[in-house]
């Protein structure tokens, strides 16, 4: 199979003498760093840790669901498991996954800057994330929360004695981590671009992160105040969501979903940014319809604020309001679809090669399309009434988040691994892992569409025996999926010591990050770049004389 990978001669190649990794040594130099690249690595380690925990919980959930009765654990325990799985995966993994790791690492380089606008706030972001994570672990060890990650009132405020307050505080803190990251990105993209780097020369990765950052900054504070109100309600009984005192439990849901719907776009947009980069590189072709993709990212961000009540169709919102939100939901699918079409058009007549990032990108395109389409089904109120709170919803969001976002994250990690570490991962093993993940994913979650359609409710530890076969298939798939996720953890760590030296641009990709050494210097650029070519300009790349990337030392 052909490949575009071009590595330096392994006999003579070595890592650069000076890079952000060996600039300074010692724990303090990492824990007090302002370097966006080091902070990205800190985030990578932390989110992987929490992914493990969330994943373990998923394993336990699937194990319980092997058999119809509630036999592995008490029903209350099961409730705690899916709640913590949701909280950890959404707030501690998916939301920061691409932005805080790959975004933090690359955005300054992609715009041609030495660092993000506010390096200290970047570090603060990470510490807030860690504190939020510790609070989640505290909630876990103290006995867990069982409200579901959606904290629906009045269940969460009046009917449960679990650690809602701790979990609420945890998410409050983690939310500010997200806000500060988004703030940093917006300011950096507006103010720190290198000379000649106009908005429309930026890689689409940056556009996606810009759009996601707008959502982070404007949406997350509403979640923050909602959690404050829930905590006040639990601690002082103020009655703002309590029907007995005149409150409206639905108000909680309006405020909660006002953030949590844009949150799903916060989660997916950065992944879409990764896919733009990967598909372009491995088709050797500029992204089709750059402007359309760029504006679609922003359109998703803007429209994403108008549709939140489609999570509340059966909760008691008025029919008229549900109608409005349903109509708008149809609209918000359009920009996402535009992106998929544009990526497909990019592939058309491109020189496609099948390196691992591209495999994950293909997986993304197929699985996200299915997940997105099922989202449109759910946006239609008539369908939603039957499908909501069933496994159809579970399958839908796992298709977009795991089949979509997690694959995009893995695509990005593999694509930029050589840049971040200077080393290549083992290609054969990584392809195997990608394939395993894809098969495992489909086996796990496709049966859940059927289960949901047949009526199996979500968040139940027990189910009628006629659903068992599909559940067993799903659990089997989860095992395969687990292997697919374990493999990268192992071989990526292995590659740190034994991987081939990658050189500055193993993928022959365009973009400022590929014009500097791997791993980059702390200050990124030896001198400020001046940009006079468009994004994805493969001709420029081919025509320019073999440019010695200035490797220091």
């Amino acid at each position, binding site marked *: 199979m052909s490949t575009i990978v071009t590595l330096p001669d392994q006999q003579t190649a070595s890592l650069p003498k000076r890079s952000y990794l060996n600039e300074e040594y010692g724990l303090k130099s990492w824990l007090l760093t302002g370097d966006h690249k080091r902070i990205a690595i800190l985030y990578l380690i932390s989110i992987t840790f929490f992914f493990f925990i969330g994943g373990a919980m998923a394993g336990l959930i699937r194990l319980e669901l092997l058999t119809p009765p509630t036999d592995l654990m008490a029903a209350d325990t099961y409730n705690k498991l899916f709640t913590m799985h949701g909280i950890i995966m959404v707030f501690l993994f998916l939301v920061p996954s691409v932005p805080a790791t790959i975004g933090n690492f690359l955005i300054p380089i992609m715009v041609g800057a*030495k660092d993000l606008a506010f390096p200290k706030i970047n570090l603060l972001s990470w510490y807030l994330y860690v504190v939020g994570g510790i609070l989640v672990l505290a909630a876990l060890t103290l006995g867990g929360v069982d409200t579901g990650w959606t904290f629906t009132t009045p269940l969460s405020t009046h009917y449960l004695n679990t650690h809602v307050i701790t979990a609420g505080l945890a998410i409050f803190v983690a939310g500010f981590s997200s806000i500060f990251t988004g*703030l940093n990105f*917006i300011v950096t993209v507006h103010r720190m671009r290198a000379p000649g780097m106009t908005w429309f020369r930026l890689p689409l990765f940056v556009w996606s992160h810009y759009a996601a950052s707008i959502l982070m900054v404007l949406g997350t*504070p509403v979640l923050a105040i909602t959690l404050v*109100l829930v905590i006040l309600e639990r601690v002082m009984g*103020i009655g703002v969501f309590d029907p007995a005192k005149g409150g409206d439990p639905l108000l909680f849901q309006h405020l909660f979903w006002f953030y949590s719907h844009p949150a799903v776009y916060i989660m997916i947009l950065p992944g879409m940014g990764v896919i733009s980069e990967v598909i372009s590189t491995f088709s050797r072709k500029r992204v089709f319809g750059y402007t359309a993709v760029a504006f679609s990212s922003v359109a998703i961000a803007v429209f994403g604020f108008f549709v939140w009540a489609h999570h509340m169709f059966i909760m008691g919102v008025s029919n008229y309001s549900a109608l409005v939100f349903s109509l708008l939901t149809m609209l918000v699918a359009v920009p996402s679809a535009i992106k998929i079409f544009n990526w497909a058009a990019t592939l058309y007549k491109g020189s496609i090669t099948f390196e691992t990032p591209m495999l994950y990108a293909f997986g993304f395109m197929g699985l996200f399309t299915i997940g997105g389409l099922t989202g449109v089904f759910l946006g239609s109120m008539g369908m939603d009434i039957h499908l909501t709170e069933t496994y159809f919803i579970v399958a839908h969001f796992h298709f977009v988040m795991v089949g979509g976002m997690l694959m995009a994250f893995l695509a990005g990690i593999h694509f930029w691994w050589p840049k971040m570490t200077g080393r290549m991962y083992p290609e054969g093993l990584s392809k195997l892992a990608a394939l395993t993940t894809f098969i495992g994913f489909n086996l796990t979650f496709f049966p859940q569409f059927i289960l949901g359609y047949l009526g199996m409710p979500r968040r139940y530890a027990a189910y009628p025996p006629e659903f068992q076969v599909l559940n067993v298939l799903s659990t089997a798939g989860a095992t395969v999926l687990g292997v697919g996720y374990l493999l990268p953890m192992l071989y990526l760590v292995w590659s740190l010591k034994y991987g081939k030296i990658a050189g500055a641009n193993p993928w022959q990709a365009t973009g400022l990050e590929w014009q500097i050494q791997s791993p980059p210097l702390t200050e990124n650029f030896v001198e400020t770049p001046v940009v006079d070519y468009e994004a994805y300009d493969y001709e420029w790349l081919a025509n320019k004389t073999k440019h010695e990337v200035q490797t220091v030392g």
Partner: protein
Amino acid sequence: MDSQAIATHPEQEHAEHPPYLRHHFATVEQQKETSTFGMWLFLLTEIMFFGGLFTAYLIYRNWYYPAFVAGSHQLSIVLGATNTAVLICSSFTMAMAVYSSEMRWRKALVGWLLATIVLGSVFLGIKAVEYHEKWEKHHVPGLNFSAAGFMHEDPNYPEDKPLPRDMAEKTQVYFSLYFAMTGMHALHMVIGVSILIILVIRAWGGAYTQGHMTTIENFGLYWHFVDIVWIFLFPLLYLISRHQ
């Protein structure tokens, strides 16, 4: 929209490299505009943060208007209006502090910042008095709330008709919002005053009168924002239907 990126001029940076210029910025101008923009984005998050509370207020005021009227009449217009005036004065003193920093007048800056601290503290003091009064009257939701007072004739408020029991109980919703909104606002004031104390100390040492005004300007933005929140809280909480 093909605007040029802000040109950075590395050649000039040696000429003007004051100690407060961070290394990832090319010019002081870029640093200043960046940090101000960052501050504005933070204020956007504050708008949305308070926005959730205003949404709740809007809904419940529509649902329980008589209870809101009765609850609002329990607040002192004199204290509320005084507090509004105090905050407007403090916004003025803060704006003058920014001016002093821009004009590099160290002592004037310190003076205006101290004035802002004093006014902010006066506001908080009056708020404390009001909160205490609420506690005395059993109007603190969840802790010692009693709707009894609203179900009977009150000689202090002769124009207020007594409310039927179920509407009287809704006054707790009003007071919940009162405490949540003014409490959150007061918390922001406390944080503001604390930061002001730090700024005053550093301003005395000359930190903000040697060309680096950005910190004072950005804090001014925060302070004015907190004032704007109160500008909305005052009529919405204190001035409901005072003609009744």
